């Protein structure tokens, strides 16, 4: 409750400063519209913004889902098949070393102007943090647990994957969570960059066109919607992860 109040205070404070800057400097509204103007634009053009926001939200969520599943599978494969590491790791690094902005036109060329190219972009940006964090978590488990599990094996050893399912996976959940949090935070970048490069719908498309027509207030309104969407998604994912890893101690210094 106190945190909500604090957030509210911060938001109101920032808006006030913003409004004051606009008043004092007297910049024209097409350079920097005040918060009141942006709010007006948001309300007036809500029917325009909403469908675009829906498209972008869909791209982000789909990208997040696909990227997470793909990253999860990759991390598990890396841990299960040691030789794969030498082959997949360079690909992983390369996927991250190339700036998505450089790849965006290519992806648009291959996957078209629709949803697919944006989802691909989001996947590309999400894949690495999820895979790297999850793989690290799977790898760095207490060797004492492995000793224990080995001794607990029956005369014929343990069933396939039993250590993975009973020990490695749950132990790696917090690390997976860190990866997924980063992924959630960067997923909107992937989707919007994709829209920026070539699209017919989405908040990125809307912003690009609003910018071109000097509708700066509409651009800010779209930006605001994007920010709220991203924050909401992050809060949702964070809450879900906390529920799943509620056994993990959290100290209050975070």
């Amino acid at each position, binding site marked *: 409750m106190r945190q909500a109040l604090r957030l509210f205070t911060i938001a109101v404070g920032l808006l006030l400063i913003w409004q004051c800057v606009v008043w004092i400097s007297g910049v024209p509204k097409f350079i920097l519209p005040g918060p009141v103007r942006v709010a007006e634009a948001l309300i007036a053009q809500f029917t325009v913004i909403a469908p675009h926001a829906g498209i972008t939200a869909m791209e982000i969520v789909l990208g997040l889902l696909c990227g997470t599943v793909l990253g999860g599978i990759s991390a598990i494969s890396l841990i299960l098949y040691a030789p794969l590491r030498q082959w997949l790791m360079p690909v992983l690094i390369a996927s991250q070393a190339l700036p998505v902005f450089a790849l965006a036109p290519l992806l648009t060329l291959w996957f078209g102007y629709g949803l697919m190219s944006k989802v691909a972009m989001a996947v590309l940006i999400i894949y690495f943090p999820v895979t790297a964090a999850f793989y690290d978590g799977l790898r760095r488990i207490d060797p004492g647990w492995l*000793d*224990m599990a080995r*001794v*607990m*094996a029956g005369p014929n050893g343990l069933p396939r994957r*039993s250590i993975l399912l*009973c020990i490695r996976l749950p*132990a790696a959940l917090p690390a997976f969570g860190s990866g997924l949090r980063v992924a959630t935070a960067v997923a909107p970048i992937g989707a919007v960059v994709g829209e920026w490069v070539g699209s017919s719908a989405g908040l990125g498309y809307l912003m690009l066109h609003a910018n071109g027509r000097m509708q700066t207030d509409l651009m800010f309104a779209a930006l605001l919607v994007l920010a709220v969407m991203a924050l909401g998604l992050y809060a949702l994912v964070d809450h879900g992860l906390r529920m799943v890893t509620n*056994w993990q101690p959290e100290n209050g210094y975070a």
Partner: protein
Amino acid sequence: MTTALAAKPDGQASIEVDVVDAGLSFAGRLIFQNVSLTLRSGEWTALLGPSGVGKTSLLRLIAGLPEDGGVTTGTVRASDGQPLAGRIAYMAQRDLLLPWLSIIDNVLIGHRLRHYRTGVEDRQKALHLLDQVGLAVRAQDRPAALSGGMRQRVALARTLMEDRPLVLMDEPFSALDAVTRFRLQETAARLLSGRTVLLVTHDPSEALRLADRIALLAGAPVQLTDAGRLPDVATPRPLDAPGMAERAAGLLQQLALQDATSQDIRASAEMGLA
């Protein structure tokens, strides 16, 4: 208090285990060789020695666990000629409880690993064992809610749940405070009586309290020697039983002396190399 369930391993006769010609080296440096040790059937054998002497490596050799860093050699045989795999329960210095599982599920982890699921009977047995270590009321709690001593009691219940004829314990009580350690030693002695137990420890009074036989692993070069006859009292021996204090002091001095010699020799060897 009943110990019916824990007194004897179900359907498995207690076994004797022979370790023959064990050796250990670290980075090409020989720690010990030609070490032979017999774990007598139904008895507690304490492996007593200073740190770094290779006690844990010897235990890992028996457990069939890979040695990290060092190289162990030697053969381990059970008296009945059958392989030891699947007949060992292991308790370490750390409790190794899985933080995401409840206490009772931690006790059942062996069953989960082997069969993925646990039956009603298994849960009843786990609950009974938790009752024996005095933690049945905490069965649904997570390990984080328990104190160090309680957690190690859960680890003991988990070891008993495995119900194996050979129990290997690697300093299981050394991370506990004196009172907790004293109580847990008693519980372990009661619940593990009648099994073949190897207790690795660096504490002479712990060895004297719990073991039917003490094997000393110490010296330079490291050798395994039998500590000889122990006070003629049933285990767990009270610390104030006649002869206990003198024996503990004697063993401690023996360890200290041998440790000092070995350190001197190691130091001079390293200086000679430099």
